[in-house]
Structure formats: C-alpha cells, structure tokens
C-alpha cells in the first residue's frame, strides 16, 4: 500500500459503497442518490464520509480550493473548487469544525465541468475538506479557513 494513501475506515466501506450504488440505481435521471440523511446528520467528517461510502482517500494536489485564509464573515465564506483529476464525477465538501460537517456533494458527471462555486457558513476556524470522486476512487485536499470577529461586537 502506498504511504500517501489514507484509509479512513476499519470496516464496512464495502457495504456503504453498495448502498450508495443501489440508491443511485433506484433514481434514474438524477445522478445523486437520495439526500443522504445519515451523512448530513453525522457530527464528524469521518462519520459523514463513512455514510457516503468514501472508504479511502488519497491526498491530491490536483484539487484546487480557493477560499480565503481569513474569512471576513463566517456567515458567508466563498469557496471555488476545481478538480484537475481526470474523470472527476463528484465534488464533496466537509467543514470539519461545523456541528454537521458535511456541506454537500456536487455531481458533475453528466455534462458539467469539474468546478463549483459555493458560499457556506463556517462557525469557527476550520479545515475545509474537499473529496473528489473520480474513476471509482476518492481524492482529497484540505484548506484551512480562519474565521475572525469583525465590527464592534455589539
């Protein structure tokens, strides 16, 4: 096994993957599975990723995350994500310190470029983790966003 490869879970990933595939098959016309309640309600990024069947991820420099080092306001943090990984099908975002870290998945497999711009709430300074699905594998990159206090605090 490559040392750069990071595996997330002890067990159960096969099941998760199967479940994800199954759900996708059940909903033709829509690339994503049904809104994944388990993943969205997970309290940690690792639990959310487990629920999404993201068994193992590899660090990748081919994911470009453009977000402020210091956000002017945590209520609206702009993030541009571009994947330069060939065969990218989906982009998922996890704000690790948020109470519910999983922020969403963007399916670009049906005719969109591997790019998305989003604006999200970041409660406190946090790593923003992006996971890209490509060719049945998962790649990841992280960007730290610092949230500051502006204004007079009154």
């Amino acid at each position, binding site marked *: *096994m490559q040392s750069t*490869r*990071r*595996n*997330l*879970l*002890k067990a159960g990933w096969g099941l998760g993957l199967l479940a994800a595939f199954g759900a996708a098959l059940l909903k033709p016309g829509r690339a994503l599975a049904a809104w994944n309640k388990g993943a969205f309600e997970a309290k*940690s*990024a*690792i639990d959310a*990723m487990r629920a999404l069947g993201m068994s193992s991820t590899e*660090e990748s420099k081919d994911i470009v995350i453009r977000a*402020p*080092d*210091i956000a*002017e*306001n945590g*209520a*609206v943090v*702009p993030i*541009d994500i571009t994947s330069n990984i060939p065969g990218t099908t989906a982009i998922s975002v996890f704000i*690790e310190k948020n109470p519910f870290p999983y922020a969403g998945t963007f399916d670009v497999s049906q005719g969109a470029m591997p790019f998305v*711009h989003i604006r999200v709430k970041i409660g406190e*300074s946090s*790593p923003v*983790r992006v996971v890209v699905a490509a060719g049945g594998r998962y790649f990841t990159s*992280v960007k*730290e966003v*610092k949230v*500051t*206090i*502006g*204004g*007079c*605090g*009154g």
Partner: protein
Amino acid sequence: MKQALVLGIVVAVAAAPWLPAAAQTPDPTAAEFDKFREIMEQDNPAELFEVKGEELWRARRGPKNASLERCDLGLGPGVVQGAYAQMPRYFADAGRVMDAEARIVHCMVTLQGFKFEELAKQPFSSLVRTPDPVSLVTYVAAQSRGMKIAAPRGHPKERAAYETGKAIYFYRAGAFDFSCASCHGVDGKRIRTQPLPNFTKPEQAIRAVQGWPGYRMTGGVMHSLQWRLNDCFRQQRFPEPGYTSETLSALLTYLTVNANGHVYRGPGIKR
C-alpha cells in the same frame, strides 16, 4: 495491508499558532478581505432586492393606488437613471435636503398615501422582513451603477446641510464620548478586523457611499444607509436618530459630497 486502515480522518492542518504582529502596514487581513470582495460582488444577493424594488416602483400601491413612476428624485418626475448618484439634494416641495431613502419615503407618503408613522415603525430589515423602502432604494441605487457621485452643492440649503453634517460628524457626546470621527477620523485604523475608513478625506469618503445599499453577510439581510447611520449612532452610545430625519440627510450630505467624483458601483455586499 490492513495496518493503514486504522487511521481516522487525519486532521491534516495542525493549526499553526497565529502570532499577531503588532504593527501591520498594509493590513494583511484587510488585503485578504479585498481579494474576495470582487467575487462576492460578482454574484450579490442584493440583486434579488433590486428586482423586488423595481416591481414595487412600478406597482400601483397604497391608499391612493398609485405607482412611484411620477416620483421626482431630483431629475424630474419619473427619472430614476442617475438620480441616486446626485442625492442628497434640496427639494423645494419638501423644503429640506433629502437623501435617497428620505425622498422615496416622501413619495410613498405624498403619491401613494402611505402613513409616515407606519413606514417609520420598523424601517430596517430583519431575518423575516425587508421593508419596501429598502428594496426601493436598492432599485433606485442600481440605476446609478457606474456613474460618478455628484451630490449637488448649488443651493444654500445644500451647503448648509454639508456644514451641519460636518459638525454632527465631529460632535462628541454620549456615554462613551464618541463622535463619528472617533472611529472614522484617522487613517489606517480598524475595529477588531474591520478597517475604518477616514471619511474626512475625499479618497476614503467614497467608502461611506460605495457598497450601500448593501447585502449584509451578518444576518443575510439588505440594508440601506439609513440603517447604517442608525446603527452607528447605536454603537456611538447616542440616543436614536429619527428615520429619514434631517440629521441623517445632513450627515449623508457631508459624506457624499466628500465622495463626489468617484464612480458608484451600485448596491454592494458588506460584512
């Protein structure tokens, strides 16, 4: 193979302790904000309110079932293009200098028959409600996008409003001895991480006008300059200024005239 499977998610970034530098010129925090300002302005939820304001402008409303299309914003009845960039100005029919929102409210009262007291009851946006004058002033402001700020100084009352506004700007009182100038009177300072423009200088005064009306990220609501000044006085520890009062129009005259000649970019986005 399975030895690697044990890893939990690796918190890849061990947050390096951030050691603040005492003196920072230019302010790197402010520079970082500016880098993303353009992206934020490119797609600005303010546009949603601009659209709503245009509908309100054209709709027949109020007890008199009239639209605002005959409202005179200073360039003649119904002329909206460029009007915002040329206010505050003196209006003979009202006998006073009015800023854009004061004038719009005046038209809502005189043309549509709304009651001022009703409009003044809850004049600022909340999470559940955006008052009509806020959407309207957003629409009107958008019709001056790309134009030069040119608040008139021809009428004696306009010149008096400027001087009175200036005196208000520098007037220290209240529980904390603050004036507007306490925060906005010197260059290069900030409150927490928020840069404080010095509005007494022409090249910085534009920042009192630019971006307003603004979509405020805090709360995610649309706010006008009437709100901005109201909330400044709150934090200045003053009592509350009347909505669309002459005090606020005078202060806005001082700030806008100082910004004359700069290009107004339309409704903006604020922290």
